[in-house]
């Protein structure tokens, strides 16, 4: 099974990358689950055409109980991707990291993987590995690979470095390892050199190069991924190529 956690600086485009990758995997015939692990709960918006799923934490807050079925906290989006959002506590209160752990325990209790039998699970994780909760997706049995999304902007590379170090620190625990970088271009000065230098110095591979694209923004305005909007676009092909790479690697592991 393809099990990927996607990390990167806040606002760098993780949700866009993740939902397009989910859509690409689905487009290639795979059964996909996308789990948004961010209190903002907007990871899966572009897979659901503007009909958001009720986040797990919101369910628990609104109903003051745990959900009893997967149907209550999931929605099927484009390409039959099963969309789940952890959501978060009341802003300014509670503990968002704990919310992620609670959600994962709950999904285990609800036998998510046994029931849905996915070919791929993608975790779209908030910004940085700030505490134990945000490292939960890369624990044993969950994601096996980490993809770091970055542009050539200084703070994006700074966050990428932190994430890479954090994952490296968990090596002795049998956690996921970093598979590579998705270069999400912002067209800043000397961007390519900076990202290439970062990748080289950390011995990381750039596994996808996503150009800055008005098509992404145009289809996002319609609540879609570019894969849904027009899979023949160049930018769509970049996501499809990444999906094919991950599928190939997964098949080689079997």
């Amino acid at each position, binding site marked *: 099974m393809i099990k990927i956690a996607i990390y990167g600086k806040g606002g760098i485009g993780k949700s866009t990358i993740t939902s397009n990758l989910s859509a690409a995997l689905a487009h290639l015939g795979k059964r996909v689950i996308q789990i948004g692990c961010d209190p903002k709960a907007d990871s899966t918006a572009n897979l659901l055409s503007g009909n958001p799923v009720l986040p797990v934490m919101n369910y628990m807050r609104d109903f003051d109980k745990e959900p009893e079925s997967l149907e209550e906290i999931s929605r099927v989006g484009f390409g039959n991707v099963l969309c789940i959002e952890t959501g978060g506590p009341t802003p300014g209160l509670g503990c968002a*990291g*704990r919310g992620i*752990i609670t959600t994962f325990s709950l999904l285990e209790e609800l036998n998510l993987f046994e029931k849905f039998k996915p070919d791929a699970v993608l975790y779209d994780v908030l910004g940085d590995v700030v*505490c*134990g*909760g945000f*490292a*939960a997706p890369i*624990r*044993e049995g969950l994601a096996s690979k980490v993809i770091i999304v970055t542009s050539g902007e200084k703070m994006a590379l700074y966050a990428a470095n932190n994430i890479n170090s954090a994952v490296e620190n*968990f090596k*002795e*625990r*049998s*956690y996921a390892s970093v598979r590579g970088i998705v270069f999400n271009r912002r067209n800043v000065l000397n961007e390519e050199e900076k990202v290439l230098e970062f990748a080289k110095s950390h011995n990381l591979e750039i596994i996808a190069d996503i150009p800055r694209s008005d098509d992404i923004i145009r289809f996002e305005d319609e609540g879609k991924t570019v894969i849904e909007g027009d899979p023949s676009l160049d930018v769509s092909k970049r996501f499809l190529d990444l999906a094919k790479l991950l599928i190939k690697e997964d098949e080689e592991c079997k």
Partner: protein
Amino acid sequence: MNQTARIISIYAADTSGVCSALYEFGGMTVIHDASGCNSTYTTHDEPRWYDKKSMMFISGLTEKDAVMGNDDKFINDLIIAANELNPKFIALCASPLPAMIGTDLEAIAYAVENETGIPSFSVKTNGMNSYIYGIQNAFLELAKRFINAKSSSNSNIKSNIESTVIFDNKTSKIKVNILGMTPLDFPKKEYFNSLKSFIEDSGMILNACMGMETSLCEVENLADANVNLIVSSSGKPLGEYLYDKYNIPYVKGVPYGIGFAEKIKESLILSANKKTCIDATKDLREKGRVAILGESVLSASLASALLIDKGIKADVLETVGEGDFEILKDFDISCDDEKILEDTLKNFDTIIGDPLFKPICKGKNFIELPHEAFSGRCFTKNSPNLINTNISII
């Protein structure tokens, strides 16, 4: 407020269950918790504490360690202790604090095992579940780690379901495992002795006990048995695992009284021969005006024994556990809420239960049946042994 106890006691927690389950297997069990918190276990929940040595530890978690995520300190302490004590395994379990901050004990165990070479595992707890949950998970983890499948008789492997061995109780002796026996439900050694005698007097062999008067060798040999006797809910997941993986069927029930003990004996022989799982209390229960409070397997067994030996009809009010309606009947009740329990008890004339239930049973005929997991050592000396003997409490 739901699920609260204003008057009555509360049951031992899952962490106590883990310690109780693993006490005799030669491992090092560590509750990840603040210093001092293991006294609840040692003073209330563990009657073996002063008679039998065991490596039970608390990590001494501090606020700073929790906030800073100082897992390395815990790992180092574990490695130092393990190298000094050389335990047969290391088991880690979480109190509410590490459970709340999501400490990954599984990963810590992995790191410790890599460093020490000693089999290490975490047992799922959060300090807020009952002792049953802790024992269940501890037995399961231990068995998964240590069962020596090669030593098992091949007829037990699931793929080889057709067994040619016919146990007539004379020519071939049935090997029995006892599953779910800890002092939290069976506080005195004499209970184990009685159960062992019952098995042997029935012409069978006690293969292993999980987990009193036992050792790690018995865990390794678990798959050699022909049938499992589940004597409490704490043994149920292990029983199901052994059935699924090794095709060893189980019988649920405690051989209380005379008639029901005979029924258990028949069930063990039938189960071993037919490879089917049997609830020994099935068809031996009737709704009545007597309520038995406590854990489901023990209480249902007592209800069946009372019906057979004395013609007394009794309902079970499961006051701890997950509502095991495989053994509970439709007229039984699972209830962990004091107020609802108090109201429900009004429907009965006689109540059998731990003495600490007495305050909510006013005006009723109350028969004391101490339960270590509920009242600790307070009433252990009054705890009657009902195994394979005349029931004289009522």
